[in-house]
């Protein structure tokens, strides 16, 4: 029982950075833009969040937990949004190829993160690391409630970013299905010409969705850098994001562009990634066991090819640039 409980908690912790990336990318893709730069934006968000909290700590000496959390989130969000803004300008205003631009953003963001991470490390004399107070901010669960037996551990033992991700998923789902603005955004992604003819400011919607989506992806990076259970625990480690962004892009397809389904899908992939540590199978080499999440992703993507329901298809104009006066 204890193993199972620990396994579930670990799965949720492992799923959260994926969930951030997935939700950000869902919002982006709903506007018709395929941003393959999730990985890059995670790097940017991660290094900025670390820098923000690190320098805050250095400046005040005894950091306040709430302020540290806010600074981490805001820095990560804004920096990743900056990456998404470059992407938006290139693909929306200049109508550049989205695949190429997204890949370039990944390369750029990876370099950006490692570069500033190393610089901070060199300045700090070897490696950069936040103190115990700030580490606790990104690791500790909800006080009092988490002490309830079983339920406390199952529901209230997570750091605040887990609950933030859940809240974003619920809000995003409500936004897309129940509000006028959400309806407009879906129309932009399905058929920008239709949206335009209906009087929707297409470019504004695309910019906002892509930039906010990018910011949300950046929170995934923050999580990986700051959380110690499933990340590096407030220390900059070279190439720490290591593929989470790409998994998130795949989970978007797995979840058929639905924020609610992405909760389950990211949990499945998260669970598979921690499975070997809780339920080791001796007759399979551990290296093979550890590639399960990736195998599952490939299997799911193949299965999706055979799914034909209209509601589950990607936004119809995903990846295509829009220009009103095109003939």
């Amino acid at each position, binding site marked *: 029982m204890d193993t199972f409980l620990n396994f579930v908690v670990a799965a949720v912790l492992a799923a959260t950075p994926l969930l951030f990336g997935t939700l950000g990318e869902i919002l982006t893709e709903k506007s018709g833009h395929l941003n393959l730069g999730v990985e890059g934006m995670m790097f940017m968000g991660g290094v900025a969040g670390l820098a923000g909290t690190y320098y805050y700590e250095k400046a005040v000496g005894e950091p306040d937990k709430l302020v540290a959390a806010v600074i981490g989130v805001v820095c990560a969000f804004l920096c990743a949004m900056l990456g998404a803004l470059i992407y938006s300008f290139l693909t929306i205003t200049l109508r550049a190829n989205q695949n190429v631009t997204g890949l370039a953003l990944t390369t750029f963001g990876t370099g950006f993160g490692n570069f500033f991470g190393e610089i901070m490390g060199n300045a700090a004399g070897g490696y950069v690391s936040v103190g115990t107070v700030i580490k606790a901010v990104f690791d500790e669960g909800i006080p009092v409630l988490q002490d309830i037996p079983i339920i406390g551990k199952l529901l209230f033992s997570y750091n605040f970013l887990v609950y933030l991700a859940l809240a974003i998923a619920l809000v995003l789902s409500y936004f897309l299905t*129940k*509000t*006028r603005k959400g*309806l*407009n955004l*879906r*129309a932009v992604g*399905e*058929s920008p*010409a*239709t*949206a*335009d*003819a*209906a*009087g*929707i*400011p297409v470019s504004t919607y695309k910019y906002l969705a892509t930039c906010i989506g990018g910011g949300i992806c950046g929170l995934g990076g923050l999580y990986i850098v700051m959380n110690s259970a499933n990340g590096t625990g407030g220390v900059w480690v070279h190439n720490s994001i290591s593929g989470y962004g790409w998994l998130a892009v795949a989970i978007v397809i797995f979840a058929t562009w639905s924020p609610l389904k992405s909760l389950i899908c990211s949990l499945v992939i998260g669970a598979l990634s921690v499975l070997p540590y809780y339920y080791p199978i001796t007759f399979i080499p551990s290296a093979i066991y550890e590639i399960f999440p990736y195998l599952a992703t490939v299997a799911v993507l193949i299965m999706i090819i055979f799914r*034909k329901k*209209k*509601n589950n*298809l990607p936004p*119809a104009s995903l990846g295509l640039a829009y220009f*009103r*006066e095109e*003939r």
Partner: protein
Amino acid sequence: METAAIQLKNLTKTFGSVVANDKVSLEIRHGEILALLGENGSGKTTLMNMLSGIYYPDGGEIYVNGKEVIIDSPSDAFDLGIGMIHQHFKLVDVLTAAENMVLGLKEKGRLNTKVIGEKMRTICEQYGFNIDPDKKIYDMSVSEKQTVEIVKMLYRGADILILDEPTAVLTPQETEKLFAVLRNMRADGKAVVIITHKLTEVMELSDRVSVLRKGVHVGDLITAETNPQELTNLMVGRAVTLNIERTKCENPVKRLEIRNLSCVNDDGVSVLDNINFDAFGGEVLGIAGISGCGQKELLEGIAGLQKVSGSIIFYPVDGSEPQNINGNSPMDIIKRGISLSFVPEDRLGMGLIGNMDLADNMMLRSYNKGKSPFADRKTPAELAEKVVDELEVVTPGINVPVRNLSGGNVQKILVGREIASQPTVLMSAYAVRGLDINTSYTIYNLMNEQKNRGAAVIYVGEDLDVLVELCDRILVLCGGKVSGIVDGRTTTKEEVGLLMTSLGGAKEAEKQ
């Protein structure tokens, strides 16, 4: 005199070096249906797109109800009560009819589809529509989609309605219904503009006609005081004869025998069900049907591009053994020495390669001829020159990418290539779709030439007026089944229309 709903003064729009509209001035009035007539590329749609805010004019003024306005975006147009129904519907497929209604509207409050549905119902009752607000657009037929578009404009309070070729995809019966609705709107005091190049519709529906030629406004006429011949002359700029010459079938020989042809598509839906017919050399066999009734699958099945069951027996010209070609790929068919030509519906998707030049596109048919490992480029280039010359293709040269040519010229290249091989069977799908009157007649003549040469011509068409004039026999498809085969010389388009909408429809009509 009453102020006009819309008055255009010297409106000009250029795209690069192409002048789409040159100082066009015209008037749209309330309580009147205005037909905007012109050939392809004469600037009808461009002009109306400037009214609906899609394009911004380079010069000239627009007055709405007597006041000068600037229409900068589609939402400006809505605010002025201008609603345009585009030829390619502007609807989001995955949303319901009700959701499509409110896209982009700046209404307050939560999204409540029930309230929207109620409002839609009121509009529907007023004009005699019938639409389910909760139905997804992808589940709708073309005519339902069009109804949604019209209701959408009315929902947004449009009192000036512009319809771009609304009847292109409708059956005669559906067209009649649409016209009744438009007349209702006219009676209601709305201003209606209908863009079209079908003269019969202009004569039937409109009060006034404005004619555009090559972007220039060449005349305003009262419909009651004009006739189709005058309109055509004005539209084309010279006198044109509007009759298709149909020669007698000289001793037809059976070339193709289709038996029990059935096809199930990828979604498991039966799209062709037990099709039987013969095609004869020296005749034009027309195929009519509402779009998506199996026309595409039928032709592609014969051409070896679509998996079908049943038999396709080909009778060679030299009188040798008939052979079943079902299951053969296009390459097999060529290797068996069967001369079969196919002009597909999707010109630049299946027929030609847009980025390659004219000569290279000719080569697509001959690249593997001869024994040399190098392709023969000289013969295709000569063929390209010949096609350009004989079919009067407007192009700067044969080294131009095909996509840079206009639709009509692209089609001439494609048809030219296909008939160059002197086919025994020539199949064409929607060969004149989107082409203007002049080019259409060139294509009809080419079909007739092939027929007179002895080829079996299969012509899938959508304009029933043309089908009954051009074809010797017409096979009507309805939901993937043969609804009837009628004689083109004795049938009427009403009979064909009935067969299109219901299996064996003509018989039922007789009973009533």
